[in-house]
């Protein structure tokens, strides 16, 4: 198996020969064999207090030695009833709550919520606000993907990666703090635009950060992408075929790593994404390594998008006038936003009153997690950590 450092910027397609793992083991036959022998598998609870479940996820694993025979994810430990809270207050009052969904990328939640209200009430957003929203989305996406790189490396024992990723993430958070005043729960998207314009010279800071990040990407590649241990732990592990990926409703990098080109930014462009030149990262292998690489390559695309935003950013107002009391006409509307984890969609139903009848949040992590149980069967316990890490869930939005 050759593990030369790769200089080819294109994603690997075939990859070095790795013996295929996973589906070769028939879990049911194995289970039957164990039953025939009169022994039984060991049931192990992984979580809800386990550092590599990235939150309060509990996996009930049935093990045969090191191998997983069955897996049942238990969720709901972080359920706060956010959707119910939304029904009990006027539309706009729900925006700060959305920060607490996917708390690694709060701005995507703010945007998805604001967009659903805007579509329901027919509110227009000024050009400048749309461009700035794109910049905020991409900056937050970079911060989120950097967190993924760091924690995923840590999951697999490459703890150094966390320090490198957080070094750059700190810069991204400082830029977001400069505009929103917060480092994690930004609450910076309003119905009809943004609460305030960007500070002066903020664009220069963002462009400088783009250069910095780009110069640091080769370091990440040396640490992870070209790391023989990392690749042996991830290549060929937890393969999802493109048919399965679609049937399970996976979205985001998890889906695109399996060869399906579905990126809301391109598929159903919102804000100004239709006017921006960027590539949708699609890989073919569908394994843990491909899911990692998809996010690593998306960093480059986000940098590309950020640079274009400040080339095209027009002058003008940053919010349109919206009445104090918002009473959207009766109907149903949904928004679609490409969050770092996939398709984030708010469905809102109005009956003409100031409070929504129903707000449903289609969280990408919730849908992506459904595939986990089938994916880990037949793999080793240590691979469960790798596969779960590569799906990149945030329990705040799984449980809502």
């Amino acid at each position, binding site marked *: 198996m050759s593990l030369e450092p790769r200089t080819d910027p294109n994603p690997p397609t075939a990859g070095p020969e790795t013996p295929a793992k996973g589906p070769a083991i028939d879990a049911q036959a194995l289970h039957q064999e164990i039953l025939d022998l009169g022994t039984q598998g060991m049931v192990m609870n992984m979580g809800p207090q386990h550092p590599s479940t990235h939150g309060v996820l509990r996996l009930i694993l049935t093990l045969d030695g090191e191998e997983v025979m069955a897996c049942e994810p238990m*969720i*709901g430990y972080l*359920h706060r*009833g956010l*959707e*119910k809270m939304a029904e009990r207050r006027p539309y706009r009052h729900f925006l700060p709550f959305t920060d607490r969904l996917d708390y690694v990328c709060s701005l995507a939640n703010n945007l998805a919520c604001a967009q659903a209200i805007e579509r329901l009430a027919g509110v227009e957003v000024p050009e400048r606000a749309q461009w700035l929203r794109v910049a905020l989305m991409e900056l937050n996406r970079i911060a989120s993907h950097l967190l993924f790189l760091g924690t995923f490396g840590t999951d697999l024992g490459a703890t150094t990666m966390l320090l490198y990723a957080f070094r750059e993430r700190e810069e991204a958070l400082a830029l977001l703090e400069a505009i929103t005043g917060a480092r994690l729960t930004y609450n910076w998207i309003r119905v009809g635009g943004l609460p305030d314009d960007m500070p002066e010279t903020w664009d220069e800071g963002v462009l400088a950060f783009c250069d910095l990040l780009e110069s640091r990407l080769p370091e990440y590649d040396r640490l992870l992408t070209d790391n023989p241990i990392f690749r042996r732990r991830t290549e060929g592990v937890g393969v999802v075929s493109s048919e399965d990926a*679609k*049937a*399970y*409703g*996976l979205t985001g990098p998890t889906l695109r790593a399996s060869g*399906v*080109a*579905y990126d809301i930014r391109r*598929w*159903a462009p919102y804000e100004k994404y239709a006017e921006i030149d960027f590539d949708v990262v699609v890989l073919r292998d569908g394994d843990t390594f491909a899911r990692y690489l998809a996010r690593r390559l998306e960093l480059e695309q986000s940098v590309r998008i950020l640079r274009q935003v400040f080339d095209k950013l027009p002058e003008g107002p940053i919010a349109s006038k919206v009445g104090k009391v918002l009473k959207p006409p009766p109907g*149903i509307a*949904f928004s679609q936003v490409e969050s770092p984890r996939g*398709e984030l*969609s708010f*469905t809102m*139903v109005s*009956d003409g009153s100031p409070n929504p*009848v*129903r707000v*449903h949040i*289609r969280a990408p992590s*919730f*849908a992506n*997690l*459904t*595939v986990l149980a*089938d994916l880990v069967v037949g793999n080793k316990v240590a691979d469960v950590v790798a596969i779960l890490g590569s799906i990149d869930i945030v329990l705040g939005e799984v*449980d*809502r």
Partner: protein
Amino acid sequence: MMERDFGSALRTALAGLPEGAVESLEVSGSVATLRVNLGSLRAVLESLKSSPEAACDFPANLTAYDTGEEMFLVYRLASIERGWQALVLCRVDRSEPVAPSVTDLWPGFNWFEREVYDMFGVRFEGHPDLRRILLPDDWEGFPFRKDYVSRPSGSPLRGPQPIDRGAQG
């Protein structure tokens, strides 16, 4: 352009269904809204998925809403290749909500159906494992139904409890 193509694709896909299966069909841009009769719900979803014209084979979303008088299931199926999506609304009986499960067509809807059961009490017939998913297994009532009224229990471990109307007279 897309509106016309999608409209005709949908009509071809749904041509074989009995009359009255689709109560209304509106296409606006790349989104079609269908109101479907509960009896034909599964047949409609199956046709949308398998028809080569409509090709709505991606399970984008499934939820429900309750207005207090009526309860609806809301399915959203997308066609990644064609770039369009169908919003399928279906009224279910509020007093005893039952709907056919589509987990065999889309395993991705497994958890979504469990969530709708958890919050609205809709029983999906044919679901392999219909249990609560977000709320504790011993939770009483279905919180997203508009007739669900809760009061604080005083215990952070138990959370709000539904009011037993019989006991209060």
